[in-house]
Structure formats: structure tokens, C-alpha cells
């Protein structure tokens, strides 16, 4: 695919994310697919942050490898990023702030000094307006029409005070015309594609999916990188009729969600690993009381506080094992925004059908990156049913009645004549405690086993209801990448690069990481020739799970735990090693 990558960098507080998102939105509004990577640090002002927007005539699945236009708000941006510039690329900077000589840039890369501060001063003393001139120059180089840029800027300021909009339009036009006069557009400059696409983060797709699934209640405690779910739903709570509660901690958040679900609304909580660690006991509460709840676990670099703004897939072991004792659960792992929308809906369906907690395993790379989706990919066509239904049995209601599927009729508080107590202690079919005066008595020992079997039997149904592994690419390829979650994106891009070199590879990924279907997986893996397991963690946690469930040991692994997303070129290099030399 023909592609164009634009990167802007500077210090936190410089407005980099907003510069980058403006460029990304111009592309998506031109009908082009975009991948936007927002790279930042755990600091509010200072440090070094950048935003990378990648577009082209295909669908980018990751941030890709090189870049074509670098808008540098400080010298550090040039020092850190200029090596990635492709031939024909350009560095946009303001010579009033620092100098860039072409001798320090890769061959064939141009330095374009743009007097952005000078443009800004014509309108205001607020130096942040320099960004408008920089955006204008960058937009010209990228092939974005000025009127489209202006529409995007106008929309992003909304109905705010007119002056700010006027200044931005003026300064960006000056930057645009300056670049037009002093430089040529990049050779890969974009052209308008089809209908405008939707630009959203993974977190926004999750929030949208939750709303579509009929979620009426979110309780959450702020934690990067899951906070975007809270922010989007809080902003739309009134319009969509969803109660959004910022709880005092994650323990409260999940218990609130469980309480709300018990009382008859679809409920969710979202967090990252540290918060999920606090939710662990309540996850079992949902399992024991058979209360549906959806938990979004957006992973970041651990352990402990780790690298709060960097990505990892290091929490799978915790998600698998969270909770004392055993209870049924499912863990879904979406790969991109459109998948996150659908997987969230699926999570609600599974939780409700099987009356048990369902985890949605995201990570920073999925939660906070920007993706484009087509409107039809997020069609808002679901009509969630009422949860108030008449339990099917007649005279004597038993909330935890033994059934073949393990799922018992669920009554909700407020329904006359069906009162029961949901208990975290072991209980009988009616919900009466077995734990106090009955445990250890032979009849109740047997009852405990029967109730445990009933709950755990739901795993069969969960497994049958869950999405099986997906094989992408030529079935007979000599190398199969094995992955889950957001790493699928860069693998797809790497496969395209390998294909352009005449190397055939395919991908086996797992939309459901638990429960797995061992027989199906053994069959699927049996058809592969050579595999390379790719995970963003230290120990190959999913590989260990696969081995435990199937006995198949994937020995060739590409594991990364540096906090950075996988780059396609890294996967290409490892893939070539596997293909050419039989791997390590």
C-alpha cells in the first residue's frame, strides 16, 4: 500500500495530542483509514511526547515503521525521531525556537523552517497558537486541502469563543501558504478517498459497544489506560440514559456494578491491572452469586505501578487466575476498534446468558490508539431486551436451580413472590447457606459438589458460545504467527510487508483467550508448518495457557516487554529468521 506517516512531537503541555489528532481527523474525514499512536509519559508538563498518524490507500493496522513528515515543537523531537524519516521527508520547525541543519537529517530529508510564532503573534500573545501554523504547514505537505483542515479545526473548537477559532484559522492558513510557497507536498501526499470514516480510540469503541449492548451502569475509578471508557460514557451519560459513577476505589466500582446488575441493569466496570488486582475478590462474588458483570481490563506495563503510559499484555495470568476458588469466566481479547465494539457487545451477551463475569482484555495500545471504522462496522442496530422476565418454573422459585446448562432462572428485586438471597457463601438451590450449620454433613457435602458442578458446567456453554480462533492469510503458509489482542495489528502489517517480498505467512489469533477449545486448537495448530508466538510480555503467558490446555508447546517466541508496541519491521525481521534459518 502507498502510505504516509505524520509525526508531531514536543513536551507534554504543548498540545501534541491535539495537533496529531487534528491531522488524523483530516485523513479520516477525507475517507482514508488511519492509525494514530499517542505516545506519552506519566507527566503533565515537560518530558517528551509524540503523536503518529499513519494513513494511505489501504487500512493501516498499526503505526507502521517510518515517517514522512515530522512536525517538531522542540529540538529533542528532531533528535529522537529524525532517523525514522524516509527519503523525500520533511521536518517542520520554527527557526525562532531552535535550528535544524539538513546535515543532521537522513539523506533526502528536507528541513522546512516555518515562522509559526510570528504567525501566532499576529493574533495573540498565547504561544500555543504556534501549533496552528505548524498544523497548516504539515497539512499542506500531507496533501490535506486547507478548507478541510479548517472544517476540522472549526469542529474541534465547537461553539467556543469565536476569537480562538478565528486565530486558528488565520494562523493555520499562513502556515499552509508558507509551506506551499517554500516546499512541495510529499510524494505520498494523500488524495480524497470515499465517505468520511469514523475516528475513535479503542476505549471509545468499548464505551460505544457497551451503550449499544444496553449497558445502563458504569462504575469506574480513574486509571490509565482505561480512563477513556469513563470519560466517553460520562460525557454521554445523560444523552444515552446511562448512570456513570466514579467510585472511591476499584473495589467499590466492581461491587457497585454487581449490585446494579443484581437489581436489573446491564453493568460494567473498567480498569487497568492495578485496579483489577483490587477487584479480584468481587470477581468471584459475581461468579458465586451468578451475577452478570463485564470487566474491562486495559493492561499497561507492570509490575506494580510499572510504566503507566506504556503498553503490555502482562495481566493474562492474573485474569485467568483472579479470585479464590474456581468459577466460570470468559476472557475476550479484541484486536482493534471495530473488533472492540463487537467484542464488548459479545461480552455483555455472554455475561447475561451465562450469569457470570466476562473480562474484556484490552491494553494501552488498543485502548488509546486511534483507529478508523466505517459506519456500518459499528451499526447501532441492537435492541437489548428487558431483563425483567418471568422465570419459567411455576410454583416454587429456586434462584440457583440445578439445570443442564448450569444457568438458573434469574429473578430481579421488585418481582413479587420470587424473593431470594444471593450469597457469597456456598448455598443451595434456594440460596440458603450451606456454609454455617450444614457444611461437613454428608448430604450437604454432596450438595456443595452439585452446586459447584452446576456453576462450572456453564464453562461448556461459554466455550461453545465464544468466538473460535481465526486463521488469516494463506492456509498453507510455511510460517504461522500466533497472537491475541492488539499485537494482531502490527502482525497484519508485517504480513503485508512479507507478502510484498514474496514471503507467505499467516496468522492464528484468539478473539477468546478463555475458555479455549483444546481439540479445535490442536487441529488448527496441526495444520501449521512452523509457528511464531508473539506476545507483549516477558514469559509468554498465552503460550503457557495454550500448552496447559492443549499440550502443544510453542517454542519459537517473539516476546517484548519494553512498553513499546510491536513495530511491523521487528516482526518482519523475526519472521524472516524463522523462514530462512528455521528460527532461533
Amino acid at each position, binding site marked *: 500500500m502507498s502510505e504516509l506517516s505524520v509525526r508531531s512531537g514536543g513536551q507534554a503541555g504543548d498540545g501534541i495530542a491535539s495537533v496529531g489528532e487534528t491531522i488524523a481527523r483530516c485523513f479520516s474525514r477525507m475517507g482514508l483509514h488511519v492509525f494514530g499512536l499517542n505516545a506519552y509519559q506519566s507527566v503533565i508538563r515537560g518530558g517528551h511526547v509524540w503523536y503518529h498518524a499513519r494513513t494511505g490507500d489501504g487500512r493501516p493496522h498499526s503505526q507502521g515503521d517510518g515517517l514522512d513528515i515530522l512536525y517538531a515543537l522542540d529540538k529533542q523531537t528532531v533528535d529522537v525521531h529524525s532517523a525514522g524519516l524516509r527519503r523525500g521527508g520533511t521536518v517542520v520547525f520554527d527557526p525562532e525556537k531552535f535550528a535544524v541543519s539538513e546535515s543532521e537529517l537522513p539523506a533526502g530529508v528536507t528541513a522546512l523552517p516555518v515562522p509559526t510564532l510570528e504567525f501566532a503573534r499576529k493574533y495573540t500573545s498565547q504561544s500555543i497558537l504556534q501549533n496552528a501554523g505548524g498544523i497548516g504547514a504539515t497539512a499542506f505537505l500531507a496533501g490535506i486541502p486547507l478548507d478541510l483542515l479548517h472544517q476540522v479545526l472549526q469542529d474541534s473548537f465547537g461553539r467556543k469563543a469565536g476569537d480562538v477559532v478565528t486565530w486558528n484559522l488565520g494562523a493555520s492558513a499562513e502556515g499552509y501558504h508558507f509551506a506551499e510557497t517554500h516546499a512541495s507536498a510529499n510524494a505520498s501526499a494523500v488524495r480524497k478517498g470515499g465517505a468520511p470514516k469514523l475516528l475513535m480510540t479503542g476505549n471509545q469503541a468499548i464505551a460505544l459497544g457497551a451503550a449499544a449492548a444496553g449497558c445502563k*451502569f458504569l462504575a469506574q475509578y480513574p486509571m490509565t489506560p482505561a480512563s477513556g471508557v469513563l470519560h466517553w460514557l460520562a460525557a454521554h451519560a445523560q444523552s444515552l440514559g446511562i448512570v456513570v459513577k466514579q467510585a472511591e476505589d476499584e473495589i*467499590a466500582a466492581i461491587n*457497585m456494578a454487581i449490585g446494579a446488575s*443484581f437489581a436489573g441493569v*446491564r453493568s460494567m466496570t473498567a480498569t487497568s491491572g492495578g485496579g483489577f488486582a483490587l477487584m479480584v475478590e468481587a470477581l468471584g462474588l459475581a461468579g458465586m*452469586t451468578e451475577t452478570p458483570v463485564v470487566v474491562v481490563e486495559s493492561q499497561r506495563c507492570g509490575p506494580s505501578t510499572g510504566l503507566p503510559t506504556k503498553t503490555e499484555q502482562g495481566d493474562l495470568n492474573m485474569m485467568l487466575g483472579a479470585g479464590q476458588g474456581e468459577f466460570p469466566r470468559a476472557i475476550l481479547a479484541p484486536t482493534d476498534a471495530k473488533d472492540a465494539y463487537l467484542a464488548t457487545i459479545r461480552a455483555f451477551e455472554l455475561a447475561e446468558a451465562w450469569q457470570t463475569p466476562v473480562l474484556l482484555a484490552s491494553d494501552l495500545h488498543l485502548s488509546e490508539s486511534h483507529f478508523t471504522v466505517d459506519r456500518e462496522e459499528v451499526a*447501532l442496530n441492537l435492541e437489548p431486551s428487558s431483563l425483567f422476565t418471568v422465570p419459567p418454573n411455576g410454583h416454587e422459585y429456586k434462584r440457583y436451580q440445578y439445570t443442564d446448562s448450569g444457568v438458573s432462572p*434469574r429473578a430481579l428485586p421488585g418481582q413479587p413472590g420470587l424473593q431470594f438471597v444471593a450469597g457469597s457463601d456456598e448455598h443451595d438451590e434456594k440460596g440458603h447457606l450451606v456454609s454455617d450449620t450444614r457444611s461437613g454433613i454428608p448430604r450437604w457435602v454432596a450438595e456443595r459438589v452439585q452446586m459447584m458442578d452446576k456453576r462450572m458446567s456453564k464453562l461448556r456453554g461459554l466455550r461453545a458460545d465464544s468466538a473460535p480462533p481465526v486463521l488469516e492469510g494463506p492456509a498453507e503458509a510455511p510460517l504461522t504467527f500466533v497472537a491475541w489482542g492488539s499485537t494482531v495489528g502490527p502482525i497484519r502489517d508485517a504480513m503485508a510487508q512479507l507478502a510484498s517480498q514474496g514471503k507467505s505467512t499467516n496468522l492464528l489469533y484468539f478473539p477468546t483467550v478463555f475458555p479455549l477449545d483444546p481439540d479445535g486448537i490442536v487441529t488448527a495448530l496441526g495444520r501449521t508448518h512452523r509457528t511464531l508466538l508473539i506476545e507483549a510480555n516477558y514469559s509468554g503467558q498465552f503460550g503457557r495457557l495454550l500448552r496447559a490446555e492443549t499440550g502443544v508447546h510453542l517454542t519459537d517466541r517473539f516476546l517484548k516487554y519494553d512498553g513499546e508496541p510491536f513495530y511491523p519491521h521487528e516482526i518482519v525481521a523475526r519472521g524472516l529468521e524463522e523462514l530462512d534459518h528455521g528460527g532461533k
Partner: protein
Amino acid sequence: MAESSARVVPTPTGSALPLIGKSDTKPTWCPGCGDFGVVAAVEMAVKRLQIPSHNVVIVSGIGCSSNLPHFLSSYGFHGLHGRSLPVAEGIRWANHGLTVIGTGGDGDGFGIGAGHFIHAMRRNVNLTYVTMDNQIYGLTTGQASPTSVMGQKTKSTPTGVIEHPIEPISLALASGATYIARGFSGDVKQLADLVAGGIQHNGFSFIDVFSPCVTYNKINTFDFFRQRVYKLESAGHDPSDIVAAFARSLEWGDKIPIGLFYKTDRPTYEDLEEVLAAGPLALQPSGIKGRNDVLDEFV
């Protein structure tokens, strides 16, 4: 899954439907336990207010007293140690047509659950929280609790407690609860009045109950309290005066006050949560079918 789509909606209060009563589960508390008086008072209060049992949810944590929901005929949620209040809040926000009563002990509410206690009060969630305060851990066989008195010897403090006890009434006053009372399980009639008043109050109602543990607490016994308690209403206390209430809450010794310490009116969380103005959340439509305007912001 339930097959029928027929909808049964929660009904408003009225006496046509069965009122609360005892369930078919007998309490398992030790003979003479203070908690018998509390369950009797809760039953009396709910019955007196004619709230049908299917519209009542009693939510508890873990501990001897947290078994209470099993002994009455309403809906119940017997959750995790210390986590009754977040569950109770979630239930209220999902269906504020329900009467929600939290029950539990001092370890559950003021130890492991202290953070939730404070935040539920500042939110003024409209629920009634009854703590059976026996100043000891009972179900774990006699360790010190957050309200055990200084010097008390327990299994975990063989040489005596060296931490100042939490004063739940003072804490509630400082945290923003809008109905704050103290009862004594030796006076079930007054306790039932206090619980009924709490249920009727629009806001967070907290009733701390001296509910002696006859097995593990040999200091704070029924006799200890019988000799010391006096009623605030007979002592001319003005429950609208928060400063006076605070002063009364610090009284401990020969004279210990019981009754209504403080009552005020402040909008509840449910009053201020605009989404709930359209009625109980559980009865509102769900989903965003056809709301394509929601997608426009992503263009």
C-alpha cells in the same frame, strides 16, 4: 435463561402484597446474641411502613450480623466482607423504587469497609444502614475490632488494645450522613422506631446499634449498656443541631446516649443524578439503536 418476555415490573408500596416476615431460615446466632433484637426491629419497622417484601433488599457483608438477610422474607444480597455499601448503592441506582437496607457489623463497616462507609454518607445515597456494633470480631472468634475500647484484651490483643476506637456517630456526622442514630438491641421498640425513621428519611440513614456479643465481649455486655444508656429525646437534645450532636457523640462513660443524634435534609445522590429523573434505571429503555447522531462526533 428465562424464556418468557412478559414483563413484571416492580410495584409501588402498598399492603396488598405480602409484607416482610421471617424466612424459613432460623437465625444461627448464639443464644442471647444482640442481633436477635436487631432483626426483630428491622422486621417491625419494615412491616409498620407497609412496604411489600418484594420491594425490599437487605444487603450485608460478612460476619455474624451479616447473616441477617437470610432470616427475613425480602430480597437479600449477602456479599463480601466490608463491601455491603457499594453493592447497596449499585442496587439503589439501578432501581431507586426499591427500599434498600444495609446491615453488618463494626468490623465489616468501620474496619475493612470504612472507606465505603464514608463515601456512601457524603453521597447521601438514600438507603438505611444498620450496624450491629458489638465492639469485637465474633465470627472469627474474638479479635479486636475498630470499636473495641482501649485496653480491651482479645485474642489479637492479649495485652490490651492500644488504638483509640472509632466513634461511628462522630464519623457519620463528619462524613455527611443526613440521619444519624444509635440504638440498643436491648430496647427493640425504640430501635424499630429509629429504623423506621431511617427508612422514611430521604437520604443516607445510619443507625449504629449496641448489639452485645455474649460470647466474646465480656466488657460491653447487655448489663454494661443497660446501666449506662439514656435517651436523647428525654434529655432535650435538638437533632437539627449538628454541634450538639457532635458533643453528644463524644459522650462515653457512665452515661451513653441513644436515640436520634442528627437529622437534616439535603438532596440525595439519586435526586441529583439526572439520568434517574426518568424513573428507575432498570425500567428505562436500554441500548442506543438508531442513535446515529452518537457516531457523528467521530467524523
